[in-house]
């Protein structure tokens, strides 16, 4: 069953210099139990999409989409608080700096108890507090925190980023949501905890069947853990499809460049050789190029690229480029 179905999502922001279209006709779909990756360099609008889904964008943003379905319900038409109720029940989100997402003046126990909804508790309301404490301890164990007592009684500033992220995940899965959105969960963590975290997310996905939208800019971790992948550049969806096939045979030059820039994917890289990188840099939001936004930096850009390419489809593999790379023999 299709959980999330977004067609042509456009996010615009009025600024003093006029209207900026940060996200330009992006489509995204997510099935139950699937881990989808969302890759793109910083400023490509991937966090914006996540926030749009959860509905925490502030009033200045204008959201337009042909279709914005969650479990068959069109969220855009719903009144604000009803929309908030559904999202609150089904979608959970974790952010980049976990320590900032925890209230510095409240104990972890308190924040954890807050996030456990009352409906899930069995038993009467009078021993709700005891039940919450029991459930909180269970949650901490589930996310891999052994000495729960010391964590519960401490303040956020006393915990490391890794533990904070685990607490955030515990809070997220407290209401066993259908979808967990992880917005660059591992940027603030060091390598060992990163791997630990990804294993935790994928185990939760398999055990509880919770689908995950993993947003990151490190291609190698994405490649290992996600089933399907979407690549974004400056707010435009350039390519999406099964991760394995996409990595094996990218159609869009930007995806190809991304893959080449990751050393792990180039087994036969000669020592001291120049790492591949696209020429130029990401344009700022105020000065976005017309048409295909990779235009000026694209190695095989041509005249037609001035018109934004439509999203073409090859079985489950979507790409939006006038001159895809399919002629190259697969590596």
């Amino acid at each position, binding site marked *: 069953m299709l959980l999330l179905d977004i067609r042509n999502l456009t996010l615009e922001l009025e600024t003093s210099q*006029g209207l*900026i*279209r940060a996200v330009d006709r992006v489509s995204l779909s997510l099935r139950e139990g699937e881990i989808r990756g969302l890759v793109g360099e910083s400023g490509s609008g991937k966090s914006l999409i996540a926030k749009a889904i959860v509905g925490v964008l502030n009033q200045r943003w204008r959201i337009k989409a042909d279709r914005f379905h969650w479990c068959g319900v069109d969220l855009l038409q719903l009144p604000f608080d009803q929309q908030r109720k559904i999202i609150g029940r089904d979608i959970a989100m974790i952010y980049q700096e976990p320590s900032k997402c925890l209230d510095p003046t409240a104990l972890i126990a308190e924040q954890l108890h807050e996030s456990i909804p009352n409906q899930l508790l069995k038993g009467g309301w009078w021993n709700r507090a005891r039940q919450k404490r029991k459930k909180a301890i269970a949650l901490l164990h589930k996310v891999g925190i052994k000495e729960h007592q010391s964590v519960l009684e401490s303040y956020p500033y006393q915990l490391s980023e890794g533990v904070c992220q685990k607490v955030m995940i515990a809070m997220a899965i407290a209401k066993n949501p259908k979808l967990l959105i992880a917005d660059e969960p591992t940027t603030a963590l060091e390598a060992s905890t990163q791997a630990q975290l990804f294993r935790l997310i994928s185990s939760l996905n398999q055990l509880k069947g919770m689908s995950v939208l993993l947003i990151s800019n490190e291609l190698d971790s994405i490649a290992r853990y996600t089933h399907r992948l979407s690549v974004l550049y400056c707010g435009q969806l350039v390519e999406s499809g099964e991760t394995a096939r996409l990595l094996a045979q990218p159609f869009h030059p930007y995806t190809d460049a991304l893959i080449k820039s990751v050393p792990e994917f180039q087994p036969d890289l000669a020592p001291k050789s120049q790492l591949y990188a696209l020429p130029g840099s990401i344009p700022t939001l*105020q*000065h*976005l190029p*017309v048409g295909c936004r990779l235009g000026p930096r694209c190695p095989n850009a041509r005249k037609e690229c001035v018109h934004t390419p439509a999203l073409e489809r090859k079985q489950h593999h979507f790409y939006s480029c006038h001159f895809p790379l399919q002629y190259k023999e697969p590596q």
Partner: protein
Amino acid sequence: MAKFQWLHQKTEHGPLSQLWDSFRQQHAAVVGLMLFGFFSLIALFGPLLTPYDPYLQNPDALLLPPSWDDLGDVRYLLGTDDLGRDQLSRLIKGASYTFGIALVTAIGALLFGLLLGVLAGMSKGFRASAFNHVLDLALTIPSLLLAIIIVAILGPGLVNTIWAIMLALLPQFVHGIRNTILQQLEQEYVIAYRLDGANNWQILRYVILPNTWEQLTVLFSMALSTAILDIAALGFLGLGAQAPAAEWGLMVADALDLIYLSPWSIALPGLLIFIAVLSVNLVSDGLRTAVRKRQEN
């Protein structure tokens, strides 16, 4: 699609122009700034503008109501006080007393505060903590109490109370500057400078001070509004400006006896104090939001 702009490049991106842009957008702050300019002009050129000598007593024009009142006299636009002195010229002269001297006091407090704040901010270890703690607490003596003590020692007078108000304004400055400096010291570019071998003085001179002038303007505007209120209050209590002086607070106190006969002789000076402080507060609010906006984006 994004507009294609080749030519219209924002020439100047310095913090000053950004600050002025976000300040300009707040209309209330601009009105405040105009009023502030108006009062400063009056404070500077007041004595030249007054239609009459503020201390000239005209025995046959006692307690005239303002000219728009039916028994008012157009020669005395805002009427006269109970000794026959022209109210308008006294109010203008008062501007140089209340507003002008408040400006001087605030600038003095700014300089002393800067000195002490820098000392407190830059020194480290026990000396720092002892120095700024004692400074913070000892200087929180209320301004009126300080004024009473100084008047008890040196006798009443406008100059004596300036010292009292300056001392009372110091904690705000020292506190604000010390926090800003400590904030600056944690920034990476300070560490970068230090790596380049810059000693404390150079860091202070080239890195920290240019970055604190914004905070200084905000602190200065807040201190100025407090200074105006304090000078007027001390004038009202008779500890500041003495009898014939045309200081606004003192004019309210003198007019207190005639509160039933000529309520406007109390209303006018009080209103001017209120508008002066309001203009300064508007500017200070505008500055604070502008600084916060500039730091946000």
